């Protein structure tokens, strides 16, 4: 039997089952904007965990991590450095964000800025930063999907064709199912990802080197500099490692899709519990590194490190197993892409287009525009994936540096009354300008430091200085937000209301008494 036919049949079967689950997840639910974006705010521990794991563990995990282990060596360890820390940050900030979200019926990250700072233009700017940063993240998934099908078909199906078919499916189930569909497909995706990662992470070093210890010993003998900083790179040394770990730890939950995922939870307590268990899932990361390091010895000289995992799997295992790994990889691209598209489309329609260009739009019209935007964003990411050739990890770092610039606005908005619209606007604009300048002029790292981290430091400093020098009063209040009590209608009172809400423990988790898991 033709091995490419076997592999492709299994991949198609897995993708079809995943897509059907996504399509049927909407049954008996009215798909309005609230249900589409935040799942009716009724997710228990299991669905929140599935949604978060589904969003966080992407093609970046599957192909990107092994790809950097293969092509860069030591610097890839930054992924293990930030993996536990991001959940510590989420433990403290997500329940507070959820609290504000529940009270003001927020659906997006930009909604949070709207409520906290009372400025439509700041909210629109946040939406713009979110959408622009999401495009490289969607591009990662598109590129990953193309690589998987191309390798699994032994080159018979071209990468571009694979990308187009896969993303027509993704757009289809985002259209029909929204965030609930994504959470349910994550069940299949997470199960397959865990099983295949554990299996190949241990099996590949065992088959070729007698175990993980043997693989590392062989690597140290063959390429002694690969496992230490800066590995196979010239400039990714210890300062880059430390600043990148800090940047990602602070900025990780500023990705608008992770931020919005907190609104789906039934209570803040669920988010805290989720933060406790999530680091365990990251154990898949070192397993992917083992495959990447093994690949360097088994299949040296690959032009693209992102191909290393699939190349080794194709070389080592039968075609049916390549099909399972490919199917898992395809869902690992499609599930996060779906939520990224959904978030980007909602941000654009609700927080950028409506308030700035069409204030008279109803929620129904916003939902319709968001669905059209899913197609627009998919097409944009497809074009970029076809015409650019950055590695998956580089794309991710690019987007991460952008969204991390939202961190001062969020964290100071939660914990300080003094932060105001002018300060946050100025800080964010400075951060974005610095990171864009450094990255576009090839200065990342700059003096050994991560460019995004340098920008974040400028951002914090400018936010603090401008907030300190300007009056606390914010610019204005968006009339489209849910009605607030008359006593809170001024923007200064809004600041106080949000601050008091997150500062007083008595109002937390009011609805989290029972029925926590589903």
């Amino acid at each position, binding site marked *: 039997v033709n091995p490419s036919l076997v592999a492709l049949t299994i991949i198609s079967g897995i993708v079809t089952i995943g897509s059907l689950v996504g399509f049927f997840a909407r049954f008996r639910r009215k798909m309005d904007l609230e249900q589409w974006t935040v799942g009716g705010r009724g997710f228990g521990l299991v669905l929140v965990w599935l949604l978060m794991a589904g969003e966080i563990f992407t093609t970046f995990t599957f192909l990107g991590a092994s790809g950097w282990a293969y092509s860069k060596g030591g610097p890839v*360890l930054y992924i293990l450095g930030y*993996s*536990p820390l991001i959940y510590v940050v989420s433990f403290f900030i997500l329940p507070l964000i959820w609290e504000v979200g529940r009270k003001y019926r927020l659906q997006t990250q930009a909604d949070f800025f709207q409520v906290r700072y009372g400025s439509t233009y700041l909210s629109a700017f946040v939406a713009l930063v979110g959408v622009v940063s999401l495009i490289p993240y969607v591009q990662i998934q598109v590129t990953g999907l193309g690589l998987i099908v191309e390798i699994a078909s032994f080159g018979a199906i071209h990468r571009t064709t694979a990308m187009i078919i896969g993303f027509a499916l993704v757009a289809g189930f985002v259209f029909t199912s929204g965030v609930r569909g994504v959470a349910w497909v994550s069940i299949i995706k997470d199960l397959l990802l865990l099983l295949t990662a554990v299996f190949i992470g241990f099996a590949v070093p065992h088959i070729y080197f007698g175990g*993980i210890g043997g693989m*590392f010993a062989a690597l140290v003998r063959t390429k002694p500099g690969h496992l230490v900083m800066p590995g196979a790179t010239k400039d990714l040394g210890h300062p880059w490692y430390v600043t990148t770990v800090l940047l990602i730890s602070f900025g990780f939950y500023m990705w608008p899709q992770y931020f919005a995922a907190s609104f789906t939870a039934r209570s803040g307590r669920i988010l805290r519990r989720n933060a406790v268990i999530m680091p365990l899932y990251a*154990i898949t990361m*070192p397993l992917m590194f083992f495959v990447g390091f093994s690949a360097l010895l088994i299949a040296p000289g690959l032009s693209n490190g992102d191909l290393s995992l699939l190349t080794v799997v194709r070389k080592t295992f039968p075609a049916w197993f390549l099909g399972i790994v490919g199917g898992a990889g395809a869902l690992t691209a499609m599930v996060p892409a779906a939520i990224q598209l959904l978030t980007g489309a909602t941000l654009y329609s609700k927080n950028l287009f409506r308030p700035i260009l069409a204030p008279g739009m109803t929620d129904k019209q916003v939902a319709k525009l968001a669905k059209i935007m899913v197609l627009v964003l998919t097409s944009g990411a497809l074009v970029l994936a076809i015409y650019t050739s950055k590695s998956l990890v580089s794309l991710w770092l690019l987007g991460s540096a952008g969204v991390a610039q939202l961190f001062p606005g969020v964290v100071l908005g939660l914990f300080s009354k003094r932060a105001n619209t002018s300060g946050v606007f100025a800080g964010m604009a400075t951060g974005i300008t610095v990171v864009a300048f450094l990255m576009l002029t090839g200065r990342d790292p700059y003096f050994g430091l991560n460019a995004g981290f340098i920008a974040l430091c400028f951002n914090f400093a400018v936010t603090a200085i401008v907030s300190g020098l300007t009056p606390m009063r914010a610019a204005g209040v968006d009339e489209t937000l849910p009605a607030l009590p008359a006593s809170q209608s001024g923007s200064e009172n809004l600041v106080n209301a949000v601050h008091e809400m997150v500062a007083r423990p008595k109002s937390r*988790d*009011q609805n989290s008494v029972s029925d926590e898991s589903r």
Partner: protein
Amino acid sequence: MVLGLPFNFFWLISWLLLTPLFMWGAYRVEEPRALDNRPEQGGKE
């Protein structure tokens, strides 16, 4: 090498396992505070 892993690898991987333990402790400390302040739960407020 520790358990077949270079020491830096072992150190980083061990924190993936230790973090949930410490955070479980933090959760146990944090939750009673929230519960104590919930009047409908017979809290102290």
